[in-house]
């Protein structure tokens, strides 16, 4: 098992390298001169020239690329002109906020979506099944930026129950913290919850047809154990796959959700950076998100090894 994990880690290297290269190419292709943008339209020509030199923009593309790679390994992403601080520190400041929002949303999605999927499968063809699957289908079709606005309209504007923008602080009490978290995380959790419900249901429906489920029932095992212990564990692989996919998509969703709710996270940072052509920040933030993305996929692969003993290659030899 460790060997497999190690092998997967090794496979990451070329991907991360390629990702870095793509980002380098793309950010160089963004129209406009970073130095001129940073200094503004009124800046004197020689000041721009000087900044170009500082940023290394006067060097050849090849040299720039090598420096870029070296800086990545050092964890140095340059300075954000918009915020006037190092990109690395800015990312470290914002990342926990995105992480918080994503984890809360994922958790919400899991505890809502998976049980609904399981119950729908066990009550196949029932009213509960129909209604929850219709809701789930609407859920996966939801434009979450619109859902976010609607939540604000209902709960902030009309009912005035919850704040619509920003992030709360624990210093202002637990409610301040939680109340700011509710709307963004509900918006962000909608698509994953609906997807989990759908996939869990279809995977469970496949599994409960299997012989071993009938076999377990024939042994007098209680239905609760048959479904929640045996069927669920067997139904997990596709569910884990979509959990992985949705965890990755959470980052996409976070970009939109954070914009709507003015949540001070990575997503909003990127949108800001793009709107203000903050090149170094774009580069650093995109790189960080891509790396996170790749690591999430790795974790999914490793989880597979755990839930499916058949992939466990170094198991004891059977008498096959």
């Amino acid at each position, binding site marked *: 098992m460790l060997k497999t994990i190690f092998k997967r880690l090794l496979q990451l290297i*070329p*991907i991360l390298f*390629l*990702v870095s*290269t*793509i980002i380098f190419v*793309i950010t160089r*292709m*963004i*129209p406009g001169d970073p130095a001129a943008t940073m200094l503004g339209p009124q800046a004197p020509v020689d000041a721009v020239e000087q900044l170009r030199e500082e940023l290394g923009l006067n060097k050849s593309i090849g040299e720039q690329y090598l420096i870029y790679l070296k800086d990545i390994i050092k964890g140095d992403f340059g300075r954000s002109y918009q915020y006037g601080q190092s990109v690395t520190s800015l990312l470290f400041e914002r990342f926990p906020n995105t992480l918080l929002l994503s984890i809360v949303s994922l958790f919400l999605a899991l505890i809502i979506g998976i049980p609904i999927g399981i119950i729908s499968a066990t009550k196949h063809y029932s009213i509960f099944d129909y209604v929850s699957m219709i809701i789930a*289908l*609407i859920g*996966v*079709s*939801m*434009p979450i*930026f*619109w*859902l976010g*606005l*609607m939540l*604000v*309209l209902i709960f902030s*504007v009309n009912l005035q129950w919850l704040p619509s923008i920003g992030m709360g602080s624990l210093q202002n009490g637990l409610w301040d913290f939680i109340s700011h978290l509710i709307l963004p995380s509900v918006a962000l959790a909608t698509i994953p919850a609906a997807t989990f419900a759908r*996939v869990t249901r*279809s*995977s469970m429906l496949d599994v409960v047809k299997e012989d071993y489920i009938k076999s377990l029932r024939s042994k007098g095992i209680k239905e609760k154990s048959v479904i929640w212990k045996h069927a669920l564990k067997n139904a997990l692989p*596709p569910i884990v796959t*979509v959990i992985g996919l949705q965890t*990755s*998509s959470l*980052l*996409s*969703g976070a*970009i*939109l959700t954070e*914009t*709507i709710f003015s949540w001070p996270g990575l997503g909003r940072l*990127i*949108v800001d950076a*793009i*709107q203000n052509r903050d090149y170094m920040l*774009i580069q650093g933030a*995109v790189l960080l*998100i*891509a*790396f996170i*993305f*790749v690591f999430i996929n790795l974790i999914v692969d490793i989880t597979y090894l755990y839930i499916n003993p058949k992939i466990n290659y170094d198991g004891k030899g059977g008498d096959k």
Partner: protein
Amino acid sequence: MNTVDLKDKDKLFLTEKKANSPWSKLKRNKTAMIGLFIVIIMTLLALFSPVFAPHDPNQMNLSKVHLKPGVEGFIFGTDDVGRDILSRIIYGARISMIVAIGGTLVGGIIGVLLGLISGYSGGTIDSIIMRLMDAMFAFPFVLLAIVLMTVLGNGLRNVILAIGIANIPGYARITRGQVHVVKNEEYCNAIRVLGASNTRLLLNHILPNILSPIIVYATLSIAGAIISEAALSFLGLGISPPTASWGNILRGGKDFLNTYPHVATISGLFILITVLGFNLLGDGIRDVLDPKMKR
């Protein structure tokens, strides 16, 4: 009594045969038909926007700003510069459909070709293409589209390109996986032995056999493209205003959410319904063509 059995039996076989064609199976799927209905309505709106739209979508009228739905014959009301929202929605359908179909075509054609080449040739070419796809997959979809839009600049053509490019790796992967399944089957070997060229084998024999999952994926990715266009425009990185697109209308409505919520509400509802329509249809097509395929 005497004749009942055989005739009934034959009838049953006949109806079963007829009932097994993909189309009649789809027809029996009620939710898929609802989806198809929505898709047809939206397509008609897109094709004949000038016929259906009661007003010029870009005609401003500062004396009729922010009318509520239904007031003065504006069914969906007007926006902050007095444009008729219904007309803008209808023209927005056109943008959404163009982007959805264009983006799906761009991503689909390039992705399927890459997948075919990669899956069929194997070896180094396969590795290179697939690592590149892995790397593209390392970007969240919206992020990739946003970054591409930053490079390309706003506008309809670029939205299509950005969404298309962001869609490539998905198509490439699914195609490659299917090619792997099909390529070693007997009939492929037979055709190869008969001396067909690789290109002919790929396009005439392998592609038709792996089309079902690709069609299913395409239907569902159209839904994704519609949301993506709206998201990009909503972030101000998509279709440039004042062109009417659902994302733009929503973006415009966002600033007046407190006072005139109808602008944002209506445009978002249209996005939701259309995406729902494609998803319903896509689910139905998947059940018919490829019941085993999982998402």
